[in-house]
C-alpha cells in the first residue's frame, strides 16, 4: 500500500498547500492593496469634494458667516443670500417622503418575504426594482401632469375639510408644494426600502421562525416579534439609503415643489429644496458671490446628509446595544 500512488498523494498534499499558501499570501497582499486603493479612492473623492466646496464657497462664507443658516432671504439681484428656506424645504419633503415610504415599503417587504408565494414575491420584487431604475425626470413629469391636478382638485380640499384645523393643512391649494414633492419622493424611494428590507427579512435564519412557531406563536407573532426585530438593523439601513436619495433628489422635486424660497407651516405651500435651487440657478449664476453662495448650499447639503447619517448610526448603536439585532447593515 505504501508504494501505491495513493500513499504518495498525502505527502504531495502537505507540500503543495505550503507552496500554494506562500503564493496565495502574495496574492492576498495584492488583493489587499487593490481593495485598499479602492477604499482610499472613495475617501479621497469625499475629501476632495468637501475641500473644493469649502474653497469655492469662501466668499459667501466670509460675507454671511453663520447667519447663512438662519437667513430667509434669497435675493440674487441684491446679493443677499440665506439657506434657511432651502434647508427647511429639504428636511420637510424628505420627512413627508419617509413617513409615507417607510410603512409602505416595510409592509410590502414583510408581505413579500414572509407571506407571498416565492413566485409572486420574486415577480413583485422585479417590478419594484424596475421602478427604482426609472429616471427621476419621469417621476417629475408624472407628478406635474397626473398628481398635481389630483392634489389640487381632490386630495388637498379633502385634507383641508378633515384636518384643516392643523396648520399643516391650511392655505390655498395650488396642487404643488411640500406635500406633493414629498409624495413624489415617497414613490421614488419606496423601491429602495422594499428591496433592501425584503433581502434582510429573507436572510433571517429559518430556525428562528421555526423556533417561534414551535413555541406556539402564530405566523404573525413570529413575523412581527421575531423576524422583524432580527432584521431591524437592515431595515434601518434601507431607510437611510432612501433618505439619502430623498435629500439629494433634484429634478422630480424641482418640478412639483413650487420653487419659492418660503418657510411655511402649511404642507400645501410652495417651497424649495437645496438640490432644486442648485439645479435651477447654477447655470445662470453670474456674480461671484452668487455662485459662491450656491456652492455653500452644496456644502450645507453635504453637511445635512452627514449629520443625518451620523444620527442614524447613533440610533442603530443605541438600539443594538439594547436589542437583539443579529444582522449587520
Amino acid at each position, binding site marked *: 500500500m505504501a508504494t501505491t500512488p495513493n500513499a504518495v498523494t498525502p505527502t504531495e498534499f502537505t507540500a503543495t498547500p505550503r507552496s500554494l499558501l506562500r503564493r496565495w499570501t502574495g496574492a492576498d497582499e495584492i488583493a489587499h492593496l487593490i481593495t485598499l486603493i479602492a477604499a482610499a479612492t472613495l475617501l479621497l473623492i469625499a475629501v476632495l469634494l468637501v475641500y473644493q466646496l469649502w474653497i469655492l464657497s469662501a466668499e459667501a462664507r466670509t460675507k454671511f458667516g453663520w447667519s447663512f443658516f438662519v437667513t430667509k432671504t434669497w435675493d440674487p439681484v441684491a446679493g443677499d443670500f440665506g439657506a434657511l428656506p432651502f434647508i427647511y424645504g429639504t428636511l420637510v419633503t424628505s420627512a413627508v417622503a419617509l413617513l409615507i415610504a417607510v410603512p409602505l415599503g416595510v409592509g410590502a417587504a414583510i408581505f413579500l418575504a414572509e407571506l407571498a408565494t416565492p413566485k409572486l414575491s420574486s415577480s413583485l420584487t422585479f417590478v419594484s426594482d424596475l421602478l427604482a431604475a426609472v429616471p427621476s425626470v419621469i417621476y417629475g413629469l408624472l407628478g406635474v401632469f397626473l398628481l*398635481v391636478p389630483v392634489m389640487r382638485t381632490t386630495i388637498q380640499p379633502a385634507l383641508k375639510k378633515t384636518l384643516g384645523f392643523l396648520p399643516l393643512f391650511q392655505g390655498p391649494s395650488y396642487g404643488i408644494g411640500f406635500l406633493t414633492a414629498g409624495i413624489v419622493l415617497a414613490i421614488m424611494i419606496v423601491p429602495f426600502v422594499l428591496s433592501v428590507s425584503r433581502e434582510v427579512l429573507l436572510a433571517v435564519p429559518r430556525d428562528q421562525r421555526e423556533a417561534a412557531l414551535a413555541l406556539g406563536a402564530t405566523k404573525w407573532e413570529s413575523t412581527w416579534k421575531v423576524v422583524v426585530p432580527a432584521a431591524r438593523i437592515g431595515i434601518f439601513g434601507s431607510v437611510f439609503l432612501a433618505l439619502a436619495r430623498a435629500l439629494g433628489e433634484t429634478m422630480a422635486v424641482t418640478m412639483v415643489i413650487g420653487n419659492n424660497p418660503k418657510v411655511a407651516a402649511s404642507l400645501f405651500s410652495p417651497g424649495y429644496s437645496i438640490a432644486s435651487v442648485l439645479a*435651477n440657478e447654477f447655470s*445662470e449664476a453670474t456674480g461671484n458671490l452668487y455662485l459662491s453662495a450656491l456652492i455653500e448650499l452644496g456644502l450645507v447639503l453635504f453637511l445635512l446628509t452627514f449629520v443625518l447619517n451620523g444620527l442614524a448610526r447613533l440610533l442603530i448603536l443605541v438600539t443594538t446595544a439594547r436589542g437583539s439585532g443579529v444582522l449587520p447593515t
Partner: protein
Amino acid sequence: MRIVKVLTVLAVLLAVATFAAAEGPVLLNAAGATFPYPIYSKWFDLYHTAHSNVQINYQSIGSGGGIRQLLDKTVDFGASDGPMNDEQLKQATVPILHFPTVLGAAIPAYNVPGVQGELNFTPEALSGIFLGTVTKWNDPSITSANPGVKLPGDDIVVVHRSDGSGTSYIWTDYLSKVNPAWQSKVGKGTSVNWPVGLGGKGNEGVSALVQQTPGALGYVELIYAIQNHMPYGKVKNSSGVFVKADLASVSAAAAAAAKFIPDDFRVSITNPEGKAAYPIASFTWLLIPSKFTDSAKRDVVKDFLKWALTDGQNYAEGLSYAKLPKEVVAKEMKAIAQIQ
C-alpha cells in the same frame, strides 16, 4: 507663348496652394446662452458646410456659464441673453465686444376660468400682479383694459421661471422700467427674489402650471408659445397701443430702439417707443474678445459674424427668432472692425 502658358498655370497652382495652406483647420470653442442655441447651431453647421476647415463647437450651458468661461479663457467667445455688467467687463483681460444676433421676447400666458380669447394687459396691471398688489382677475387695472370681457373674481396665481433664464431677465427688465416699485424692491436679473408666485422649471414647467392652475398668469418665451400654439395676451406699449407679440412686432421694437443703441450694444430695448413695437423684447448677444492672439481664429470670427448678420439672418424666422432690423445690422458691421 507656351512658356507663358506654363508659367501662368504654375502661378495659379502656386496661388491655390498658398491659399489652401492659409486655410488650415480652425477650431473654435464657444459657450453660453441656451435660448439662441437652435439658431446658433444652425449657423455653425451651415458655416461649416461652406467652410469645411472651420469647426465651431457651441455648448449651451447658460449665459452665466458662458460669461464665466469667456473670462476664464476656456472658450474663444461666449454668448449671453443679458449684457455683461461693468464689473464683469473689468475682469476681462482684453475688452469684450457685444454683438446682438437675434431677438427674443416674453409673452404673458394665462388661464382664466370662463375667458376665451386674448386679454389686454397694461404695464400697471402686469407689474401690480407680479408685485402682489393686484390679486384678483376683476381688479380695475385689468378690467379697464378689457372692456366687454367678463372677468371673474378669482385669485391670480402668479407663475414665474424657477431656473435662471434670459426670459426672466427680459421680463424683470421690463417690469423695472415700467414700475419704480419693482425696480427698487426686486430689480432685474436671470433669477430674482420674486415677491409672489410659483416657480416652474423651464418654459414647459411654466406653461404646464399655467394650463393646469385656474387663475394662473405666467410668462413664457415667445418661440415656445408659437411652437406650442399657446394663446397669449397683448401688452400695451409706450405709445398706448396694445400689441400682440410676433416676429414683426419684436423686430419693430429693436428698430424703434435702434437710434438709441450705444456703441457697445449693451442696451435694453424693453418698453421702446414706436406704435408697432412689442414692449417685452430683448437682443441676445455674442460676446467676442476684441483681441485674438491667433490670427486665423480672428479672421474666421470676423467672417462668421459678417455672414451671420447678413445671410445668416434669413434663417432666423424659420426657427421663430425675430430678425435684427437693418439699422442695427449696419451699426454692427462697422463694429466688426474693432476685432483685432
